[in-house]
């Protein structure tokens, strides 16, 4: 992918224009790439949805609405007008009172009630127990306490993406799914980044026998069927959020180590490294000050391609039932739920699938754009 080493010193000095660093230059090139800019915008929006969505969403992601199981996606508020009276009748049947005509007025339902015995004010609880009504109260209570009017507010809720098979708001669940998937993707990539860069830079810089042994270890790990080992790890040590991203990070650092090692091999022969050695800077100091910063170009490109890979791996694990635990969710888990409910509830599959695809697309296009921007030789 990015095996061609970028000679950072050269690209910087060849430009006669004053004051344009490599990074500014790359940013300019990136901005000219429309697909990459659009992808960046999509990603920012999605990330914002993942961070703030669960906070501003009217429904908590684990709140169950037993009376709105698999409610279709719609912009209109629930309950539907025609559903109010039957639902109210059902709730009233529990009170075992004689009831008159049910009257719906805006968002208030009224019914006259009567009974042999004095009315017990606790009957309002039967109404409040329903998801559809709230704030039930007895109005116009007669002096003998045997007749009155029972009133309740219709509790209107909106499910723009519908609800799932347990009656939870899909939009809120997608928000939390984005948060979990992105967090795992970013954290796993970060882990692969730290492991791979340290390992690769050390191997490349020390060279010789150490390099040989270290890279043989990478080769051996490489030849193992790694998706299986992720599954085994998760099966062994349980299904926690932390373990999942560690498992993915542990499997994804190998490429990074190879790329960084290759870069380091060229960088360590540069004059500035020689100068630093002559000045007596320690190996770790040279690595940190000179080698690692100069490998960053290809590393950044690789990380943007690593994030979708990690998200994909996490989604696959979730899909197999090895992901985060309910009621927490991730995009892969939502897709899996959607797949098993797609007959009659297709929105459960469509919205999470579109969200995941959009994220993966945006990350891939951004990665391609970054590669073009940071590696002008490739064009």
């Amino acid at each position, binding site marked *: 992918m990015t095996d061609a080493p970028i000679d950072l010193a050269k690209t910087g000095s060849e430009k006669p224009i004053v004051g344009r660093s490599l990074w500014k230059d790359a940013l300019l090139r990136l901005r000219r790439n429309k697909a990459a800019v659009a992808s960046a915008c999509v990603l920012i929006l999605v990330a914002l949805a993942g961070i703030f969505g669960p906070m501003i969403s009217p429904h908590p992601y684990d709140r169950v609405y037993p009376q709105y199981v698999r409610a279709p996606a719609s912009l209109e508020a629930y309950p539907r007008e025609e559903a109010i009276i039957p639902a109210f009748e059902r709730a009233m049947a529990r009170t075992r009172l004689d009831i008159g005509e049910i009257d719906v007025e805006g968002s208030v339902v009224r019914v006259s009630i009567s009974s042999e015995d004095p009315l017990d004010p606790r009957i309002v609880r039967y109404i409040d127990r329903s998801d559809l009504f709230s704030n039930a109260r007895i109005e116009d209570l007669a002096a003998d306490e045997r007749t009155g009017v029972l009133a309740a507010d219709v509790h209107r809720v909106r499910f723009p993406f519908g609800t799932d098979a347990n009656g939870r708001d899909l939009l809120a669940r997608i928000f939390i799914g984005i948060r979990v998937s992105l967090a795992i993707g970013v954290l796993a990539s970060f882990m692969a980044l730290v492991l791979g860069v340290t390992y690769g830079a050390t191997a490349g810089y020390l060279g010789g026998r150490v390099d040989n042994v270290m890279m043989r270890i990478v080769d051996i790990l490489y030849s*193992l*069927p790694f998706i299986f080992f992720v599954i085994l790890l998760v*099966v062994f040590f349980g299904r926690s959020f932390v373990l999942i991203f560690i498992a993915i990070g542990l499997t994804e650092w190998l490429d990074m180590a190879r790329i960084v090692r290759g870069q380091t091999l060229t960088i360590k022969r540069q004059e500035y490294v020689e100068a630093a050695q002559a000045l007596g800077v320690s190996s770790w100091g040279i690595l940190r000050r000179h080698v690692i910063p100069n490998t960053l170009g290809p590393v950044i490109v690789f990380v943007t391609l690593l994030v979708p890979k990690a998200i994909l791996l996490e989604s696959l694990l979730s*899909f197999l*039932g090895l992901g985060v635990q309910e009621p927490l969710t991730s995009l892969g888990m939502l897709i899996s739920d959607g797949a098993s409910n*797609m007959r009659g509830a297709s929105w459960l599959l469509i919205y999470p*699938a579109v969200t995941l695809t959009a994220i993966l697309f945006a990350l*891939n296009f951004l990665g391609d754009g970054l590669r073009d921007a940071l590696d002008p030789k490739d064009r």
Partner: protein
Amino acid sequence: MIGYVLRRLAGAIPTIFIIVTIAFFMIRLAPGGPFDLERPLDPLIMENINRAYNLDQPLWRQYLLYLGNLAQGDLGPSFTRRDFSVVDLFRTGLPVSIQLGSMALCIALVFGTLLGALAALRQNSWIDYVVVGTATLGITIPTFVIAPVLSLVFGVMMGWLPAGGWGGGQLRYLILPVATLALPQIAIIARLTRGATIEALRSNHVRTARAYGLPAYVVVGVHTLRAAILPVVSYLGPTAAALLTGSVVVETIFGIPGIGRYFVQGALGRDYTLVMGTVVVIAVFVVLFNLVVDILYALLDPRVRYD
């Protein structure tokens, strides 16, 4: 050549041995066992079960026993599917997975190389853009999205094809799973072929062939394609092994009785022998197909020789 093949096959044995060893001890290190139930079994019964499956022996002894049985082609009894040996399970499941996988592989190879070569020959035309755009799409969308969406659209909404099931291997039941398996591979192969063809068209031997005045179809069909197919061949090795041993996603979504599901199910149920069996089968396939790739390489690329 035959000596080379034999040497490679002999060299595969230590590889498989290492994989088997690692997998054996990893799965045994996992907490829990195959017979852990909600309500613990009577200790006496537990002891009998353990003895029946040799689980009462020390781990190194079990390991040696397993290796001995493996050498004789016996993968042991399944722990969770009673009355089935792992070999029985593979005997019924493997043909199904191989049938699906080989169909997907052939389709992917034909369409992938055709589309890739077409895009390369008409570089920067609308055909090229369509192929590259679709390929990006196919690579990005994961299988576990494609599979349920195909099933939803063609199985549930349109009702043209069965949304799932095996149906004894009738063609109607095969179309959607094969399409799911093939689509991402078509995309990847098309991209590989396109890149390699563009490079091959610029290479010296193709220029020479053109200079000799060979007809265009010979230049493209023989000299370019032969060079362009090389990266596809090396990609196909591990891919073929993965496709033929079944995909857990496709088999789960379409309810297909292949062997792709066994690894996950076995790992979850601590079915030690089933997991080990799957690992062995996959390792054998990977080794075999890597060998096939190397042989094909020698046939396609005259610069490569094995003596």
